[in-house]
């Protein structure tokens, strides 16, 4: 003990020196944020490196979830891209889509059997009850009107085409209000006749005849045929117009079946008008 005290006493000057230097350095590190941050940095270096490594490993374990999250995010951002959106602006008028309601539903179908040279022609399509087909639905092709669904089975349906005498559609001269029934008359699958066009109507060869809005079968504006020739009927008041049919019945493949959502509504209204 005495030896220890003696050693301490002999080194007292050095101890005082060390204590004073320590005091000075405490003062320095307290007063200077730069030196303090240096000291803290070096003491945090080891723990910081360990934490960094563990974080790297953890990020690898969560890579899958992260990818999924990023994919979802990408999809969400793509939807915001204007290229992925249909512009509702028609160019001149702002179109509010709530002002329109879908009236016609179309369903694609294929002609699997057809005739066009007989006096009563028929067609068969590969669509039936399973696809939601009902008798009375309209059939159109890309060029124009085809016919009307007659009978429906589970997977197929038969169609009465325009080139059948029992079929009749309402046709209108495009660009005017004149309309009349279009009928086929056992002649040529390329031609049909539009009757009851007033004689004061201005007709020209090549004029287009389209479906009328009064028709319950087709949407308005579907091409039926083009004016080939015309002549006054026997009563001398109306024209009988010979039409070159828009649809080529000799080479039909893909057709569209059209269902009118508002057909029942219209028929009900018409029947109310008729009954009293």
């Amino acid at each position, binding site marked *: 003990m005495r030896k220890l005290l003696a050693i301490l006493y002999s080194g007292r000057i*050095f101890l005082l020196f060390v204590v*004073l*230097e320590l*005091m*000075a*350095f*405490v003062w320095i590190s307290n007063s200077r944020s*730069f*030196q303090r941050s240096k000291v803290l940095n070096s003491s945090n270096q080891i723990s910081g490196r360990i934490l960094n490594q563990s974080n790297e490993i953890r990020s690898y374990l969560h890579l899958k979830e992260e990818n999924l999250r990023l994919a979802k995010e990408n999809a969400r951002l793509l939807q915001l891209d204007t290229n992925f959106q249909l512009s509702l602006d028609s160019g001149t008028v702002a179109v509010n889509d709530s002002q329109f309601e879908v009236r016609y539903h179309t369903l694609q179908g294929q002609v699997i059997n057809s005739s066009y040279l007989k006096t009563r022609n028929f067609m068969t399509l590969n669509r039936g009850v399973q696809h939601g087909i009902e008798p009375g639905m309209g059939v159109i092709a890309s060029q124009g009107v085809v016919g009307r669904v007659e009978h429906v089975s589970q997977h197929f349906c038969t169609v009465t085409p325009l080139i059948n005498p029992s079929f009749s559609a309402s046709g209108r001269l495009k660009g005017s209000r004149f309309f009349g029934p279009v009928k086929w008359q056992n002649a040529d699958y390329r031609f049909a006749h539009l009757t009851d066009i007033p004689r004061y109507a201005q007709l020209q060869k090549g004029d287009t005849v389209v479906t009328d809005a009064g028709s319950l079968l087709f949407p308005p504006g579907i091409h039926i045929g083009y004016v080939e020739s015309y002549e006054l009927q026997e009563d001398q008041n109306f024209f009988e117009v010979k039409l070159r049919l828009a649809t080529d019945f000799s080479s039909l493949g893909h057709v569209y079946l059209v269902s009118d959502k508002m057909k029942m509504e219209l028929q009900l209204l018409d029947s109310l008008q008729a009954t009293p």
Partner: protein
Amino acid sequence: MTNVRLAISFFLLVLLQVLVLNNILFTGYLNPYVYVLFVLFLPLNTRRSSTLLLAFALGACIDIFENSGGIHAAATVCLAFARRAFLKITTQKRGVDFEGIIINRLPLRLLILYGFMGIFTHHLVLFLIESFNLRDIGSIMLQTLVSSLFTTLIALGIHFSTFRKKD
């Protein structure tokens, strides 16, 4: 009487350093810290613990005025601790001969050598703590060397005009 002279020189040196020399900063390298003269010229018969405490107090005074937070205290305590070793190296005296040395009466050659060694050590410690970075050790050494030479020059001027005359 000696203590009164010491106290006066203490305050005069602090004031000289704080009010005059700290406002001089020649080209970014010359920082003369002449206040170390007090530690260098403390009589050898002063108790060693008193020397260290006085040195700390002196450095602390400069730090308070300069708002440098302890760096001058650390450097000055360093100088006070190393002072006797420098003096032994310079004078090559031991034992009773060494204790009898009066620093003011040293030959000028030895005085300059002793003074420069002390001043250089003090400045080196000071600038090292100040920058706290060993990467630009080169520029610190240059700054230390130039500042030490400049401080020694000023110290010599002060020494000749005051202390030496008195004897």
